[in-house]
């Protein structure tokens, strides 16, 4: 039915178009003016054409309402027969047993865990990259970096999932603590170095003599760096001791999800930073601020709502992703103990839908089938709310920058 309607809607404007052309050619043969009847026909055609176009546009907009309603309708039978309490509060997920148990709390927790993990990695990295991309590196370099972001975004999720399962998981399992240690050091040492430089310089600020000051600054820098290195080494000693019993765990999934969500965060927050405009930047530079101060105190606060929207979009991507989680999360429907233990396997909403539907489809109409729609509806609700919020934030930023 939908198909036929779609075909009609697509064909109709084409017919109108050929009519219109017909009338135009005939009218030009008669001279420049059209007869009254032809004018009427043309007006009617234009009206119906516009109407048809509106229908098409409305249909593509209504699809989303239809999806929400349809998923909701299909999830109702589950709630009718099982109620809400078990689904949201129990952690026992045994849909194929007799009697079946449908406690999805652990699955919600799994989704939450990997999403938070992914955003925790993607948001800082993405925002710093966006700042660098929009204001620090020059135009020519940017022309080369932007395709990198786009290629990261274009790589299909199943390829990321394959990487997580076949490359990263065995690597994590065999190298365990050393892998964590390497990541930690890779991030911490450069940061510590930069921090020590700034700290050393600011600590020696009180010294008046110039030659002495430089000496003090170097000394302070070295001391700070040594202290920070000691701290890093202390933590890495703890990290090296960790043994990862299974490479398919929440950490693995979070890292790969972060890579997948990164391009969204980068490109949307870069747009937000760009839309702040030249005037604010130039004003800040004219007052003598350095680039770092301009960015941190003027541009990022001005674009903060856009950046927030970018992070929300990143959350949405991570939450709705299926293949990576399904392949590399281990799919164990239990809450890790303690809850923030990222080295244990988890199971998420999307992976549960993907994994269980193959079997549940044979029993269409049962609780087992409808519970998956209930999960889909929860997912939809999350993404709907996130989308609404991010849209509100983005439009508020637009208004703010326009000076309303």
């Amino acid at each position, binding site marked *: 039915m939908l198909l036929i309607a779609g075909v009609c809607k697509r064909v109709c404007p084409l017919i109108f178009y050929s009519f219109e052309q017909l009338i135009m050619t005939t009218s030009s043969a008669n001279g420049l003016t059209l007869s009254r009847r032809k004018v009427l026909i043309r007006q009617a055609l234009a009206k119906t054409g516009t109407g048809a176009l509106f229908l098409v546009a409305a249909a593509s907009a209504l699809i989303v309402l239809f999806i929400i309603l*349809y998923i909701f309708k299909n999830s109702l039978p589950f709630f009718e027969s099982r109620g809400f309490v078990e689904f949201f509060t129990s952690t026992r997920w045994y849909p194929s047993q007799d009697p079946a148990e449908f406690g999805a709390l652990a699955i919600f927790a799994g989704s939450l865990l990997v999403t938070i993990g992914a955003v925790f990695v993607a948001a800082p990295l993405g925002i710093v990259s966006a700042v660098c991309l929009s204001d620090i590196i020059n135009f020519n370099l940017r022309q080369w970096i932007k395709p990198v972001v786009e290629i990261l975004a274009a790589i299909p999720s199943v*390829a990321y999932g394959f990487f997580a399962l076949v490359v990263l998981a065995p690597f994590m399992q065999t190298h365990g603590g050393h892998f964590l240690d390497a990541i930690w050091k890779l991030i911490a040492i450069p940061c510590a170095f930069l921090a020590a430089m700034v700290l050393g310089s600011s600590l020696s600020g009180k010294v008046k003599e110039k030659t002495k000051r430089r000496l003090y600054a170097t000394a302070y820098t070295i001391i700070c760096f040594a202290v920070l290195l000691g701290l890093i080494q202390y933590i890495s000693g703890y990290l090296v001791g960790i043994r990862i019993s299974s490479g398919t765990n929440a950490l693995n999934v979070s890292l790969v999800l972060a890579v997948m969500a990164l391009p969204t965060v*980068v490109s949307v927050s870069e747009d937000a930073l760009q839309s702040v405009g030249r005037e604010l930047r130039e004003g800040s530079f004219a007052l003598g601020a350095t680039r770092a101060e301009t960015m941190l105190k003027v541009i990022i606060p001005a674009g903060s709502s856009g950046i927030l929207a970018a992070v929300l979009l990143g959350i949405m991507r991570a939450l709705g992703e*299926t293949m990576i989680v399904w392949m590399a999360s281990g799919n164990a429907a239990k809450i890790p103990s303690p809850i923030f233990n990222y080295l244990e396997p988890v199971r998420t909403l999307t992976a549960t839908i993907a994994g269980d539907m193959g079997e549940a489809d044979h029993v269409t109409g049962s609780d087992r089938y409808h519970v998956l729609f209930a999960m889909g509806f929860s997912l939809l609700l999350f993404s709907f709310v996130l989308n609404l919020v991010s849209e509100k934030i983005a439009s508020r930023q637009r208004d703010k920058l326009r000076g309303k």
Partner: protein
Amino acid sequence: MREHTRKLFDYAFTGLGIASITFMVAILVIVLVPIFARGVQAVIFKGTVEHRLLHLEKFSHGDEDAIRAEYDEALKARQFAWDMLDNFKKDLKAMPSSERGHYRKEFADVEAIFAELMGPRPGEHRFPIVRMQYGQNRWDRAQVKLHELMYYEQWTYENGESHLQYLPRKDLFTGTSLEGLFDYTESHLEEMLKPKITFYWRFLTDSSIDAHIFGGIWPELLGTIYLTIGSMLFAVPFGILTAIYLAEYAKEGMILSTIRSCISTLSGVPSIVFGLIGLAFFINYLKVSPNKSVLAGALTLGLLVLPTIIRTSEEAIKAVPHAYKEAAMGLGAGRWFTVVKVILPASLPGIMTGIVLSMGRAAGETAPIIFTAAVSVGQALSPIQALSEPTPALSWNIYNLCTEHEAVEEIRHVQYGMVVVLIGVVISLSLIAILMRARIQKKMKR
């Protein structure tokens, strides 16, 4: 000094930014390099004579006489080993039963592994399963099998921890006539299998044999092409018309903003939910096909890429200079005539960019086709069959081969090859889009 500190802080800030960009590029390299490095091995590898024989017999590729001659040569080298096996079998029969029991299981293992390595002997009964009709096709797999033949595994327990040890199998047969087999096989493996660098470009155009253990990925590639083109057939007309309405006809107001926010919500719907809708609505309710089919999958993917197409087309249409429209209107053209004859041609490159981008998206998506279009094993379909039959597709089969296949380790090269082909398709589509966009921007600047 405060000034100095500020300057240093500025440098540190710049350093942090550049470090994070470098990190991002490094991530791309880390993800792509291992996949590409191993994916290439699906096409370029050392193939044994068994590989050439299989392709001669199953696909009639290659020069028959040359391959047969080579195979006969290899058989001669193998015959020596087979004779050794036969001799030991005879010895085994002559042994007292107490000793025979000692050797029987080990000998069965050796025989089985040797058969896997070399394939059946000429004239021996051929099993219907293809993987039992041929020896190892690839030299790297042959090396693995050789290791299996040379050593046996033993688990030892020490301080509550278990260790895996590889012990030479030769030691099990010391003093028997079989002892020589191991050294002979190790030193003569090249003569027995005749490895040769093979450039197997037909990986892309061959069907798979025996669940992807042999052959190529053509059915999967074709399925992905069908799904991508099919989804475009649904999404493009719908999307462009909607974009025309939004950009040219609609007046700002409640309705327009509602439509817009609906479309942006649609773009945020998780892909697995599209899969649910495809299954529950298109297949179970509308029954567009009795079961999974390319048609249902294409419809579902069409819904998925619709918002992207609408948004990019709308932007492209809006980017057309107003002067074009005013000139056309001034010449007396109607609104629709202006849109079709002036605005659409002018915005076509932009619209095409959006279409190419969403083709990449549709080709790579897996979740929406799991329940609507994808099967694990299948043949290449004709376009008519695609209306009612499911198809294997690259994205789904990558998942399937690396998680559910019975011999995951043996077909690693196929998995990597598939991933490389899929990434290659998707990245080349998005590179085309990037280049098109760059050209448009250049044009705009002029």
